[in-house]
């Protein structure tokens, strides 16, 4: 399947998860996307899956304390100044689960895009989006840079731990990304990027499976909106 059709399918699944109203339906979509992500190599997928799981988990835990819906309390807590009485209702838990699953679905869809698709071919289809391809590479590069900084510090006898320790690496990570960006821009210019009259490697022909992928993507979105 061409990457464009695969992207359409991933986007459709993410859209369906956002449009669907039932927790079970969103859970199924999320599970499908997770299964797709699990096809990626373990070492590379760990960062994406962990990030998505932590974000979705945090959303699930916080939502009941932010929302005030429902009349079936499952827990009643103390009265907190400014916030008032803390309580959690069944409806809030359901809403939290729905939102967390939606976030997880979008996260897994992005992970599948970043980990499994051939970005070179995808961006051959969408020619103006070369910067998007380079941006997509940013995450694994940042991950590698962060591991490099931590390893260099360990090599000097220092362990990086806790939020404060990791936060101290944000600034050098940003600087290293900017430096790499400049070097890459220079190399691209030296290789003729930006010159008029660009050509492309011939694209593989559009096949029936690609058309089917687009149709299924459309069907998934409509199903998500109307019946889930």
């Amino acid at each position: 399947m061409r990457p464009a059709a695969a992207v359409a399918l991933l986007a459709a699944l993410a859209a369906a998860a956002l449009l669907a109203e039932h927790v079970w339906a969103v859970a199924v979509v999320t599970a499908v996307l997770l299964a797709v992500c699990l096809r990626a190599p373990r070492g590379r997928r760990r960062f994406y899956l962990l990030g998505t799981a932590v974000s979705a988990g945090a959303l699930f835990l916080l939502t009941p304390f932010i929302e005030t819906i429902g009349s079936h309390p499952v827990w009643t807590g103390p009265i907190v100044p400014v916030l008032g009485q803390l309580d959690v209702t069944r409806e809030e838990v359901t809403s939290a689960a729905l939102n967390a699953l939606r976030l997880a679905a979008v996260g897994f869809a992005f992970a599948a895009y970043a980990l499994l698709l051939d970005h070179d071919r995808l961006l051959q289809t969408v020619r103006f989006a070369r910067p998007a391809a380079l941006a997509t590479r940013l995450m694994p590069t940042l991950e590698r840079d962060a591991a490099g900084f931590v390893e260099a510090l360990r090599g000097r006898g220092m362990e990086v731990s806790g939020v404060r320790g990791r936060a101290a690496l944000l600034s050098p990570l940003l600087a290293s990304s900017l430096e790499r960006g400049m070097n890459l821009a220079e190399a691209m210019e030296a290789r003729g990027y930006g010159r008029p009259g660009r050509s492309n490697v011939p694209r593989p022909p559009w096949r029936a499976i690609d058309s089917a992928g687009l149709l299924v993507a459309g069907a998934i979105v409509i199903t998500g909106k109307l019946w889930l």
Partner: protein
Amino acid sequence: MALARAECLTFTYPESAAPALRDVSVEIEAGEMVAVFGASGSGKSTLLRAFAGLVPHFHGGRFEGRVEVAGRDTRCVRPAELAGTVASVFQDPEEQVVLTQVAREVAFGLENLGAAPNEILPRAHHALAAVGAEHLADRPVAELSGGELQRVCLASAVALEPQLLLLDEPTSQLDPEGADAFLELVAELDVAVLVSEQRPRRVLERADRVLFLERGRLLLDAPASTAQEWLRENCPRWLDLPANGHVSQPREAVCRLRQVQFGYPAGLPVVDGLDLELARGEIVALLGPNGSGKTTIAKLAAGLLEPDSGVVERRGRAAMLLQDPSRYCIRERADDEVALGVRGDRGRAGAMLASVGLGGFEERHPRDLSCGERERLALASVLVVEPDLLVLDEPTRGVDPERKTELASLLHEGAERRATLVVTHDEDFARAVADRAVVLGREAVYV
């Protein structure tokens, strides 16, 4: 008529007080191979960038004089328009890769030049074959070793069929055999080549002409045979590093690896049944081809990796210098960076900076330093912790022979206090610094 020429070229980078190039005039004839030597920061990379048009177009700065390539004034044409006539391979291959798959990466430049679509992939494959990397065509770029990546970058340049090929330390990540093969390939190409190198011996054997830069000035422009005489007289260390005068007195073992096995996830063991002992007072060089597991052994010795089986025993504190000096750019001042390892003691950090030749650089931002200066900053950051076991992984990448000699002396000075393991491709440096060498073969370890 010369293919490329610089006339009275003086160039100063923005926000820099001193010119990187001063009144440089040089001509390059079609088909000749010209080597550029000079200390770190002498202007070699800037000269190469001037011929690619990147200086001044990409970097800005003050440009005086004139540079012409194939009859075109580089001030009047953008670097992208010079691409095809000129092709460049930069120092760090990882920072010039755009796409994710090898064949398409090589095809990228051809697409930019507007080559006929049906010719692009065949030309990319032909270029890969020309540099002995056709077997990599379908591999993801992210899975390649540094040496493989350098070949792919050369293929990307060769695919453009340029008249002038600019190579900036192109063999810095290659083992001696790989470097020989790489330069042999370059010498066989029917193009003019301007190549800068810090390991001059191999290039000298193949170059037609040699340039030598010092602080931006061109001190030498001569045929290779004459250049060898000049170097012997004026910069002997560029031909031969001084012999190792250090007499080691190995004492107790600081690190012992016994029957160590290690493999990365989803891969074959990289290290299998290794025995190695490092004693206080000795400097051991670890040599071997690309991919033979040198860095992995170094990390096992330093405690950055744990073995799958076998035993690693260490006495005292271990410290390791990683290959990439940009990993030592965490703080915003050079002395603060070094002081990280000694609880912020700027006094000790300043003294250590001075001992690696970076006295006066205390307030500089680590990212403002040149490649060679960063390498020395990284070394200072590791040495300052006064380890019992010092492990250095490729400490001479981007370091000129003069600095290599100083580095060898620096390691000899403190050798009695610690055990030192130096992982390197640089055989000359290994000979100059080490008391013994461990050479990794594919089958065994020879001590």
